[in-house]
């Protein structure tokens, strides 16, 4: 080396290593092995595709990435289970069809997906982090020859940090190891510098991204005297009439339409009022019986159907279906729904009346029928779901129930009294 060349070398940036090119992958593997045998430790190979022999030749240790992925998957899974439990069973208990608030099977799909998502993110970003990527600027990428590394080039580098590194000696060793070309790697002039275009682009995008939140924040925190903007006008102002409003469409100016004359609403046909409503038309003339709204109706006193065992059994069946859930099978107002509501201490719950209280016993059958048909206090109306016959059957069965709870031994036929004693 002449002194002139030395002068040039001094001006050049510091050498950080040597890069050797090999002709084939087998020569690269042999070269890496021989360099390692020569005592070099800071070696790295560069290839267009993974070559597993190199791991052994360079002493590449297995990555810890799988453990990290396992931990991420476990954390994701436990987190997902805990989150679902907390949101659906604790913070906002969601009771669906009486199913348990938290049950594993229904929560497994989301848990599974979160496990996979957490693990996959960790595998990808963990790989990048362990590999030191992204690293857009690299002294290797400034070597012209190195651009073949992603096509068909096979390279080996020795880092200057290696204790036995000496540019000349190491270069010779690389050539002896089979390298067809060796050249020094020089320090990056300014490793953290970003191209101007990227910086400008990032600045522009960053400031544009700030606009929407700023606009939303200013709109939310200021007032305006302009009328409200209706983006979906037909949703805010729907072309429809509400009850008790006017309309120019009809001659009478009303939006609500009166019943067409000569028609009867469903369930209002009065062919036999006593049978269908439980009271006779007109008002009872009791006390101040002036036909006012508060007057007591003329309740039917007798079940207006042929009383038979079949009707009684039908009544029992219907009672057990429709009434027993609240009133209890024996009619004491202790049905399962009521017990559950009392257990939950639900403030709005009105306990159902015992059918054996005196004021119920005293009611005429017509009044009982009316209560089933139209409801009473919190009890809903059942007229639309239990037919007239069945309602009378229930009333009949209720009378039998009441009788059974007020009975004395005298009511039991003599031939059954012995059996009754045995049962008790």
């Amino acid at each position: 080396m002449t002194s002139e060349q030395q002068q040039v070398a001094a001006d050049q940036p510091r050498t950080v290593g040597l890069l050797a090119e090999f002709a084939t992958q087998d020569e690269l593997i042999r070269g890496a092995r021989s360099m390692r045998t020569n005592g070099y430790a800071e070696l790295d190979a560069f290839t267009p595709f993974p070559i597993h022999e190199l791991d052994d030749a360079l002493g590449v240790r297995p990555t810890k990435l799988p453990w990290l992925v396992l931990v991420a998957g476990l954390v994701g899974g436990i987190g997902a289970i805990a989150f679902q439990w907390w949101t659906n069973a604790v913070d906002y208990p969601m009771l669906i069809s009486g199913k348990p608030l938290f049950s594993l099977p229904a929560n497994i799909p989301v848990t599974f997906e979160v496990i996979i998502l957490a693990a996959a993110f960790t595998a990808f970003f963990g790989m990048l982090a362990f590999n030191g990527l992204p690293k857009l600027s690299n002294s290797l990428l400034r070597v012209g020859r190195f651009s073949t590394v992603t096509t068909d080039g096979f390279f080996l580098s020795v880092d200057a940090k290696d204790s036995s590194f000496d540019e000349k000696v190491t270069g010779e060793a690389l050539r002896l190891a089979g390298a067809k070309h060796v050249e020094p790697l020089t320090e990056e002039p300014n490793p953290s510098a970003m191209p101007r275009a990227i910086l400008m682009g990032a600045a522009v995008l960053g400031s544009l991204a700030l606009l929407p939140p700023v606009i939303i924040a200013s709109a939310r925190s200021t007032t305006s005297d302009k009328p409200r903007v209706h983006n979906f006008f037909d949703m805010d102002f729907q072309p429809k009439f509400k009850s008790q409003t006017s309309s120019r469409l009809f001659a009478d100016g009303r939006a609500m339409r009166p019943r067409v004359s000569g028609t009867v609403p469903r369930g209002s046909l009065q062919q036999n009022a006593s049978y269908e409503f439980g009271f006779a038309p007109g008002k009872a003339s009791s006390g101040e019986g002036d036909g006012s709204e508060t007057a007591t109706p003329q309740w039917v006193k007798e079940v207006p159907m042929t009383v038979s065992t079949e009707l009684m059994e039908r009544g029992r069946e219907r009672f057990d279906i429709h009434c027993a859930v609240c009133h209890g099978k024996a009619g004491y107002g202790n049905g399962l729904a009521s017990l559950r509501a009392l257990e939950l201490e639900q403030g709005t719950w009105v306990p159902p009346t015992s059918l054996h209280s005196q004021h119920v016993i005293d009611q005429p059958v017509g009044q009982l029928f009316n209560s089933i048909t139209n409801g009473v206090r919190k009890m809903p109306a059942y007229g639309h779901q239990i037919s007239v016959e069945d309602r009378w059957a229930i009333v009949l069965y209720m009378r039998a129930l009441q009788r059974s709870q007020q009975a004395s031994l005298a009511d039991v036929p003599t031939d059954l009294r012995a059996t009754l004693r045995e049962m008790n």
Partner: protein
Amino acid sequence: MATAELAVNPNLYRRPQESVIDGDHNYRSITDTVCKIVERPRPPQAWYVAFAISSSLTLMLFGLIGYLVATGVGVWGNNAPVFWAWPIVNFVFWVGIGHAGTLISAILFLFRQNWRTSINRFAEAMTIFAVACAGIFPAIHVGRVWLVYWLAPYPSQHLAMWPNFRSPLLWDVFAVSTYATVSLLFWYMGMIPDLATLRDRATTKFRQMAYGIASLGWTGSARQWSRYEKAYMLLAALATPLVLSVHTIVSFDFAVSQIPGWHTTIFPPYFVAGAVFSGFAMVVTLMVPARAYFGLKDLVTPRHLEVMTKIILATGTMVGFAYAIEFFIAWYGGNGYEQFAFINRALGPYAWAYWTMVVCNVVSPQLFWFKKFRTTPWLMVVVCVFVNIGMWFERFVITVTSLSRDFLPSSWGYYSPTAIDVLMFVGSFGLFFTLFLLFCRYLPMVAMSEVKAVMPKPDEADSEARKLRLRPTPAEEPAKPEYVGGGPEA
């Protein structure tokens, strides 16, 4: 007899490992073949024509979405009792298409099926584009799209409540979004080394910078490769159960409800088989013209196509079996409503759709029993187009026939789509092909580094070892021993 020979050459009687590619290729020629598609200054004229059509359809799709958002979902034909209709049919159809990519890249990777390297990038890209198309439909189906964030589990003072994590529709959101994310990660990670190739070959500053950023500074160091391969294997292992879970959970949208014809335990495996079936059909449909057009015939060989047609045949037969089992269960289960639902499917007002589905999905793939159909590219494409038509109809039949005959006979009806329905579905194809054409133009279509890792070493070109690995040409193929007895070969 040949013990001495065997001692010298232990591979003597071993079946030679078949090469995954054809032609006399070395590493550089692989790179050239794949990169020149991306690097030519102008794409061929046909690309422009195709792009003009598909991007106009995409614009139409977005225009229609705007119209739908401004007007309401009433622009669709969805109405009582068929509230799911086309948007959900299209969603399930596109998600199904998106199953081949990750199956090829993950499951075939774990099974060490090296032939996958030629087609995995292509199929994964297709997966991502199909899932993008799929995601649009449920998103706009919610009605008030601008409030869609209410579905997310975020602490909100306004709502003061959480989503119901026991609802199949919520599972579906998690399944499809996880699948889209993981597929994207998998696809991008596999592409990093190839993007670095494009960076290193770039001739303009802009390309160098764009591919440089996208390849994240990849140098191909042995240490990078070691961690990269481990991460790739992990992602494959994670994506394998994921790809099976996606359509399982999509099928839960139906199977967990109580509608006759939906409430069946066969749905998860049946949906997954159907998804793989339609996904592979779409891969073949696009691969055949792409390999011919972009000069990839050496990398995507007739053998690749033949293997894919065999998978289509297998999954198509599974789907046909599932159709039969549905009827068997309806009969064997003794439930009159279930029986009605299936008899109504085959003989009711939608019988035309049902039999279209059966012909396309069950009958047409059976043609792949014939070697001619498995080896003639244009015949494959014809069959695969039928398969995709059939798979769309399968989802239509499942969704619409069951809903149009719900529990209340007074509300039974006949569903008809509106023009908006049809145009939106056509528009989703536009979006799919637009993304696909952009992919062909700007990204490496074949995983070069993966092909190089499994191809024979070029320096063995003249050696015995390379001859052994190459597929023997018919002339060299050893004569088959003659069969004495009868049998299929005779």
